[in-house]
């Protein structure tokens, strides 16, 4: 077999610097994004279109359907947290992910293109009627 001689390059300074740089990038972006207060509302999007906004403090079951009316997944809001009970997708990653409750947290069901996001700016006033 024609196998080239493998040249084992040792981990060097340059690589360690890159790793440190990546970790710093991760840390700063984490600090930038991180504002994890308990959220007030939950937003559900299907294929990048808003499906609905729901109150996190109200226990309710939400059936998410596609345009044709077929059920994509069932989710439940209870005790200020939301989780996916069942989904028609094959990998069930969304179901296994469990509960989320902090603002910015998401449950993504990639095969169904469903994104569940906790938001807390839902009470922002858009206009005042005088």
């Amino acid at each position, binding site marked *: *077999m*024609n*196998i*080239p001689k*493998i040249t*084992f*390059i*040792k*981990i*060097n300074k340059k*690589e360690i610097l*890159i*790793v440190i740089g*990546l*970790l710093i*990038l*991760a*840390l700063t*972006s*984490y600090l930038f*994004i991180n504002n994890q207060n308990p959220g007030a509302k939950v937003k559900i*999007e299907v*294929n*990048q279109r808003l499906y609905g906004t729901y109150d996190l403090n109200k226990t309710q079951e939400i059936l998410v359907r596609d345009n044709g009316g077929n059920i994509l997944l069932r989710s439940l809001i209870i005790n200020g947290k939301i989780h996916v009970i069942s989904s028609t997708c*094959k*990998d069930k*990653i969304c179901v*296994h*992910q469990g509960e989320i409750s902090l603002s*910015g947290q*998401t449950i*993504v069901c*990639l*095969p169904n*293109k469903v*994104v569940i*996001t906790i938001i807390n700016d839902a009470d922002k006033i858009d206009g005042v009627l005088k």
Partner: protein
Amino acid sequence: MKNHKHIVTIGVLLALSLIFAYLEMILPSFLPNPAFKIGLSQIPILLTFYLFDLKSSAAVSTGKVLMMSLLFGYFLTYIFFVNLSGAIFSILFIGLSQQLKFSIPMTSLMSSLGHNLGQFIIIGFTLGWNIALFYLPVIIVFSVLFGLIIGLISQSLLNKIEKRI
């Protein structure tokens, strides 16, 4: 260059890669989000790259995505393209590491980073960048951690293989 042995070896490595991918699918994930994977199936891809060349590892990588999608019935669906984009970017990053003369663990790290970046570009375009950005820090940390671990495993395997030849 390409003899039968070459093709057979690549086939075996592809099969290994599929087995690892399947194992990761059925084993319970201990990571915070079950969508995150350690990337065991990257080991055969890295071996292919070091034993042969970039082209062969690209064949294994895309072959893995293709076979997995056919086996589990998501060929040509959205998930398939997400995975394919991950595979392509992963190979691009391995190629880049080769040009930059990176060590094996670092190459593995780059490959894992590329894999995630490729997936997130598709997800960002289709589901919005907010989600992609939200997961960015976690993705980087896991890429570094598991990329290095997978790289170290591959390095010791390659060491052993080289001694046998």
